[in-house]
């Protein structure tokens, strides 16, 4: 192994080799990993398992709380009622968990910064209500809203636009501009455009929230608590004398939770998702290894791929079984459309967090904002972007909520919506202290958390009070695990 010796004045100057040429310092000598013996990665499964155990002991429980919760809840509910473990019941889970998972995905962005958004649920409600209004009132928000409220909506959109433009957050700028255009040109009647408007409204709301937190300097807890209350009022005001709005006839919206993909489509999605995951992770491990970069053992990658394939196989198989209880009725089978939506969000947002500069900076600001600032990162811009991202996803979550309930009730996004979403992210392994979390956590945690209402709804003699208490207890437990892990890793 060649080593540019101390005293070689070109040692530092040599460093910037053209990216891509492996081994600037010692390309000639075979695997030049310098002293970094660990960079070849743990080469065996046992080694990887040891590393994982060490990580858990070091205070990073990862997905363990979610798995624990899953086991406990499944055992408890299957003892409580026989209906729980039937296909007919569990097929409802994607529709129930969808909104929680999507809102939790957004929350991961702000939780990564060590911030919180208590208004995510009701902001999603406002988005859904806006969508419902344009859909049912021929896209004309102006005549649908009374008492100058239309002006207020436009002002919020303009404020969001101003923040996004001023901070040079271009994706948010474009989305809000399109949203404004939809409002002003009354084209929101078309269902897909109406759904986009819900998302754009969320983006604008997020920019305003982010501005108040990052620029004005109000703690996010206070800003979003204020908005949590305010948005609830706005939803009621938007509905006006009409009350709840039913969306039973708007199929792309309703279909998210209540329409199923034909079984072959389900298998196709399965093949694309699992195949894509296998292809990408196996190629990456092989490619990195061949270039002598740090990589995971191939065996571990294969175990993950096989595990995902098996779990997916079970899920798709059961969702494709006929769950029509009435033998004379038309068969009900296939996965609800919300499943591919969640999978797409999972992939896209995970890539955003792990493969882009923005994602890297988000983790950095959450880990040590001062270090990030000194590294030249615009910390405020990152903060505002995170809140914009969060509320945009809250808007999508709002659509999923409207889909599941079949319309927009006056309390949409209120109650325990937010508690479920925060719980989902935390149970999945995202830290409340910032710097640690993944989009995957929202999916895992959201699925587990949603088992609680799913199971309790089956027992008519257990009322809502149980749901609140059990969910609260779960969140507290997960947060305790998180806090304990943090203490451990700090010591």
């Amino acid at each position, binding site marked *: 192994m060649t080593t540019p010796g101390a005293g070689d004045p070109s040692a530092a100057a*040599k460093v*910037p080799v053209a990216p891509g040429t492996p081994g*600037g310092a010692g390309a000639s000598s075979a695997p030049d*990993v310098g002293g970094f013996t660990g960079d070849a990665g743990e080469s065996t499964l046992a080694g990887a398992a040891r590393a994982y155990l060490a990580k858990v002991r070091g205070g990073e429980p990862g997905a363990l709380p979610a798995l624990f919760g899953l086991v406990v809840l499944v055992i408890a509910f299957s003892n409580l009622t026989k209906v729980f473990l039937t296909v007919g019941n569990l097929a409802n889970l994607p529709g129930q968990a969808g909104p929680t998972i999507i809102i939790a995905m957004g929350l991961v962005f702000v939780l990564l910064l060590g911030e919180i958004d208590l208004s995510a649920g009701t902001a999603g409600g406002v988005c859904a209500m806006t969508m419902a209004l344009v859909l049912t009132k021929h896209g004309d928000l102006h005549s649908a809203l009374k008492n100058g409220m239309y002006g207020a909506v436009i002002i919020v959109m303009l404020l969001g636009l101003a923040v996004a433009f001023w901070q040079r957050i271009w994706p948010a700028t474009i989305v809000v501009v399109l949203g404004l255009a939809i409002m002003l040109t009354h084209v929101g009647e078309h269902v897909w455009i109406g759904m986009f408007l819900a998302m754009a409204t969320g983006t604008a709301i997020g920019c305003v929230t982010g501005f108040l937190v990052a620029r004005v300097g109000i703690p996010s807890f206070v800003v979003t608590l204020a908005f949590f209350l305010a948005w609830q009022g706005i939803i009621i005001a938007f509905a006006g004398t009409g009350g709840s709005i039913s969306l039973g006839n708007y199929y792309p919206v309703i279909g998210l939770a209540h329409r199923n993909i034909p079984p072959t489509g389900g298998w196709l999605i399965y093949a694309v998702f699992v195949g894509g995951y296998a292809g990408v992770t196996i190629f990456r491990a092989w490619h990195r290894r061949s270039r002598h970069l740090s990589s995971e053992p191939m065996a571990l990658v294969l175990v993950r791929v096989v595990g995902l394939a098996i779990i997916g196989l079970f899920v798709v198989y059961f969702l494709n079984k006929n769950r029509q209880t009435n033998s004379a009725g038309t068969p009900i089978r296939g996965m609800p459309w919300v499943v591919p939506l969640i999978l797409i969000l999972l992939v896209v947002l995970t890539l955003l967090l792990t493969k882009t*500069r923005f994602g890297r900076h988000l983790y*950095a600001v959450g880990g*040590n904002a*001062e270090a990030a600032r000194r590294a030249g990162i615009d910390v405020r811009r990152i903060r505002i972007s995170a809140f914009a991202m969060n509320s945009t996803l809250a808007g999508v979550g709002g659509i999923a909520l409207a889909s599941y309930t079949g319309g927009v009730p006056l309390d949409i996004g209120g109650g325990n919506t937010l508690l479920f979403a925060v719980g989902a992210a935390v149970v999945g392994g995202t830290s409340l202290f910032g*710097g640690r979390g993944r989009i995957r956590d929202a999916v895992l945690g959201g699925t587990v958390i949603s088992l609680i209402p799913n199971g309790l709804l089956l027992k008519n003699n257990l009322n809502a009070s149980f749901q609140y208490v059990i969910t609260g207890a779960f969140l507290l437990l997960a947060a305790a695990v998180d806090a304990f892990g943090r203490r451990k890793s700090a010591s």
Partner: protein
Amino acid sequence: MAESPILALRGINKSFGAVQVLHNVDFDVYSGEVMALVGDNGAGKSTLVKCVGGIYSIDSGEVQFEGSPVAIHSPRDAAAYGIEIVYQDLALCDNLDIVENMFLGRELLKRTRDLDEAAMEQRARDTLIGLSVRTVKSVRQVVSSLSGGQRQTVAIAKAVLWNNKVVLLDEPTAALGVAQTRQVLDLVRRLADSGLGVVLISHNMNDVMEVADRITTLFLGRVAAEVNRRDVTYSQVVELITAGRTGNIGLKPATAAESA
């Protein structure tokens, strides 16, 4: 060495309100040398470093880089000239790994605008090899799992990664044990040997006497003396720090007494 300094401060004055912290300070850094900056608490060492790094503005005086006067108004300006400061509190993100920290804010991108992890990892590793760093197991270790010495090493390596010309180290060994101090001092020496101008701020005279080529002592905001390390003894440096003068080196008795 007769060559001209890469970084030279001339007549720097800096006040915070009514308190003048730096009086007419001259300070030179030479390529390939370790310049120690020593002085008691409140002598103005950190203020001087922050003036160079663009965190504080100077009231009057001139900063010359490679012979020509420059204006440094922000940390970005300093970085553009190739002046890097390794702060006492390190400024690393605990939740990121070594590579991620070294490239923070300056990540390399592929043509498809996503992160070029392979190139970053390779360059980080080459830098650490170039500095003969052997203390970390993997460049993908998370910083929270590193010891104090290893963290200091990462912080210094980060400063070297970008072809910098001057590196200022603020108390790099203050929180370290014996073995770790050893590693860091070796690293400081290698930085200078590889052609950088290195400024070492330290309270520890053993470190200074061992690794420095020149020593500038500050005494209550004034430069007491700039000496060649070989020309002075340990106790002379201590006297310069505590009294501002020793024998015929240092401030004039009147100045020293007046400031004290």
